[in-house]
């Protein structure tokens, strides 16, 4: 597995909207496309309490390329983005990394 670490920095006051969008919409749309999450975390102590950190699990970069493109092009996702941001944008920044589990990692 390859893990994609994604860190979203929300605009002040918008973390509840981001969490609600994942819980009520994004996770369901991901399931449709076979996209697997491997954990979601808010920040207890760190650089910004506006950050949401999460992991996605991919079999390969080819799988990621294919499924992520289909998700991004999904009309239902476009509708959800438009509706969830009708009262203003949610994210100020998105950072992502591709990580490779080590031989001794408890998560592979």
């Amino acid at each position, binding site marked *: 597995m*390859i*893990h994609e*670490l994604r860190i979203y920095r929300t605009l002040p006051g918008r973390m509840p909207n981001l*969490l609600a969008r*994942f*819980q009520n919409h994004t*996770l369901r749309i991901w399931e449709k496309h076979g996209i*697997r*999450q*491997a*954990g*979601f*975390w*808010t*920040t*207890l*102590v*760190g*650089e910004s309490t506006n950050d*949401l*950190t*999460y992991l996605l699990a991919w079999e390969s970069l080819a799988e990621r390329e294919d499924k992520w493109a289909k998700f991004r092009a999904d009309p239902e996702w476009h509708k959800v983005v438009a509706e969830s941001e009708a009262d203003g944008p949610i994210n100020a920044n998105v950072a992502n*990394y*591709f*990580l*490779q*589990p*080590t*031989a*001794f*990692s*408890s*998560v592979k």
Partner: protein
Amino acid sequence: MIYELRIYRTFPGRLPALLARFRDHTLRIWDRHGIRQAGFWTTMVGQSANDLTYMLAWESMAEREVKWEAFMTDPEWSRIRVESQLDGPINANVSNTFLQPTAFSAVR
């Protein structure tokens, strides 16, 4: 659970020494102190290929305070730390963050 995300930036060429220390020594000493890992990753695509990212899982901040202190003052760990750096230091920087799983996280 509280997750501690730790990112070690190694000096150029020293990531293999860090991985060997975790695999051969640190994980065993952690086991003795009841410290639980929740994944180790090297960087495939990201800010620095010298980074090792890993997670620890804690029941509470109180557990972390007690067990981490016991580990940091463990005589075997003190010996290993010295021996593993006889040929030079390993880490250029260590950063850590405390993360709280969300209600819908695959990892809790």
